[in-house]
């Protein structure tokens, strides 16, 4: 039986305590009492684990007990987690090794840590019990060849979306273009494009969420792309008034999940990721259609667009919708499948 958290994430440390008193592993019982007296403040959410200083240490054997405890926990809970499409035991164990990869550094007989050992216990408890996404636990997501900071309030970029950057790279003359990424979240697409642009190319990325804007700016800075990628806060096209009709391309991965599907999502997504970045309204296309409406005035003649959708039917609908705006407005409309064969992206060119 899974003990479900009713409290918000930041107070998860208290649930760790409760959980650990119930713990069936003697190795953890020994540390549980010391844990109570060392309750650390909630982790600063801004800095990904792997970027924090190695300011803690422990012995290899203590770390080994942590690993064994964490593996046992993963194995005993995995069956429950998989009910709504959550991770399997082997996936959790791989996440555990990545957590340790991000958090530890072996220096001779000492293990240096980027957070204290109790936090590791706590983080793993949050992962298993509260279903807090692994990427929020470590504060980053590996995406394309990037390591992007993410945190609560910011959508974790998905592997499907990696392909949007390749679609842009296939556009003639993209390198020196002025690009827009609307609803940039962590800044993933904008940074992905920014990294392959030529000297004159630029990306302007927008997001309504303050958390997203903050994280995106952090990521842009980490890849030293301040000259290429600009992050602006605001609702879709609103922050782009000065670029009207000047964009050589526009990409977006807007929220596209139909509202009715939200309650059935796996816990990692439904309970932890921002609904602002997921919920696309009744049929999931509220924002996609808004973006389609703004395309003509935003793009310059010959400009390119690429949208990610919920797949198949949505993609078809979007193509029909754009085509119905006038037969000569857009050309070379395509639906592109993702790696799983879902017809995920809609692309085309302005006349």
């Amino acid at each position, binding site marked *: 039986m899974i003990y479900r958290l009713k409290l918000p994430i930041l107070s998860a440390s208290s649930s760790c305590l409760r959980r650990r008193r119930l713990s069936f592993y003697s190795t953890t019982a020994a540390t549980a009492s010391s844990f109570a007296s060392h309750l650390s403040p909630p982790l600063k959410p801004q800095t990904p684990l792997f970027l924090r200083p190695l300011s803690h240490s422990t012995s290899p054997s203590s770390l080994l007990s942590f690993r064994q405890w964490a593996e046992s926990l993963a194995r005993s809970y995995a069956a429950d987690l998989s009910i709504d*499409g959550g*991770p399997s035991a082997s*996936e959790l164990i*791989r*996440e555990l090794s*990545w957590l340790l990869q991000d958090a530890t550094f072996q220096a001779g007989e000492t293990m240096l840590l980027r957070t204290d050992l109790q936090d590791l216990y706590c983080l793993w408890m949050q992962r298993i019990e509260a279903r807090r*996404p*692994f*990427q929020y636990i470590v504060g980053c997501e*590996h*995406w*394309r*060849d*990037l390591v992007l900071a993410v945190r609560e309030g910011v*959508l*974790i970029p*998905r*592997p*499907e*979306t*990696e392909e949007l950057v390749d679609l842009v790279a296939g556009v003639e003359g993209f390198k020196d273009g002025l690009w827009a990424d609307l609803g940039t979240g962590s800044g993933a697409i904008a940074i992905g494009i920014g990294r392959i642009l030529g000297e004159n190319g630029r990306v302007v990325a927008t997001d309504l969420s303050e958390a997203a804007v903050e994280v995106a700016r952090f990521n842009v800075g980490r890849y030293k792309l301040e000259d290429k990628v600009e992050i602006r806060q605001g609702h879709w096209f609103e922050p782009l008034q000065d670029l009207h009709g000047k964009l050589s391309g526009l990409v977006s*991965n807007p*929220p*596209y*999940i139909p509202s009715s*599907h939200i309650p059935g*999502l*796996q816990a*990692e*997504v439904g309970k932890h*990721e921002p609904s602002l*970045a*997921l919920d696309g309204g009744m049929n999931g296309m509220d924002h996609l259609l808004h973006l389609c409406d703004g395309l003509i005035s935003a793009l310059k003649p010959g400009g390119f667009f690429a949208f*990610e*959708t*919920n*797949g198949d039917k949505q993609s078809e609908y979007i193509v029909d919708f754009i085509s119905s705006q006038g037969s000569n407005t857009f050309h070379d409309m395509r639906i592109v499948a*993702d*790696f*799983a064969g*879902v017809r*995920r992206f809609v692309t085309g060119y302005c006349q």
Partner: protein
Amino acid sequence: MEPEITSLESLMSDCPEDKDMREMASEELAEAFEEEKRLFHSLLKLLLPKDEADERDCILEVRAGTGGEEASLFAMDIFKMYEKYSQKKGWRFEIIDIMETDLKGYKEASGTVSGCGAYGKLKFESGIHRVQRVPVTEKSGRVHTSAVSVAILPQADEVDVQVRNEDLRVDTYRSGGSGGQSVNTTNSAVRITHIPTGIAVAIQDERSQHMNKAKALKVLRARLYEIERSRLHMNRSKLRSEQIGSGDRSERIRTYNFPQGRVTDHRVGITHHAIEDIMEGESLDVFIDALLLQEEMDAIATFSA
């Protein structure tokens, strides 16, 4: 060289009574003959067809064979042996992918070795490596024999092997349903199948799908390049068929006998008695140098025949 030899010979016949002089001349003559042989040898070496792949970086693949968990543990030992050997050579060793077993042995492991002449040195390591020892899992203390297969492939780039996108099938983890925003998975495993040859490469170690895909393509390219090379190799000549390092992966090339503390290479018949050194990547050159020399001699023999 020849004028010197001639003049030394005439010197010897000219002064039959000067003993010291004759001795000196005969010593020098012997040296001159040695030198002549050496020059002849290096000349032949220059004339030998060179394998341009020798200079390349390579991909190392280790697979546990017969012997269950013990074979996987030995596969791990062998993999680490090459890692240490590479580091000692000043090469860069990067893990591509490791499939662990429950006891933390390696069912399969692959890595890239980058550095000057990495393929040329490591190519003889392809084949079956046999181990004889008491497995840690064995309570009765009985010696088991298990096997691990090693493959060394020269690295290939887009120029060597052109892979058409249409020929590839890319499989990724998919939970079903809509995917995209609806799913958060950290499973970024990728399997790429080259449809015309049926070769499949699966990579799961990287944390982004993009990187797993790039690695899988790299391995796939190396495998396709190797197929093309062995096809050319077969066509080129039958003469070389007896050569070592033919890359026949079913050949049992070496035995690691732990109870006796020795390693024997069956191709050159050399036994090294400090098995620990070998496993630490220290003395592997004992075999590699002998194999290189033998390759050279074989090539010269077939060339001058």
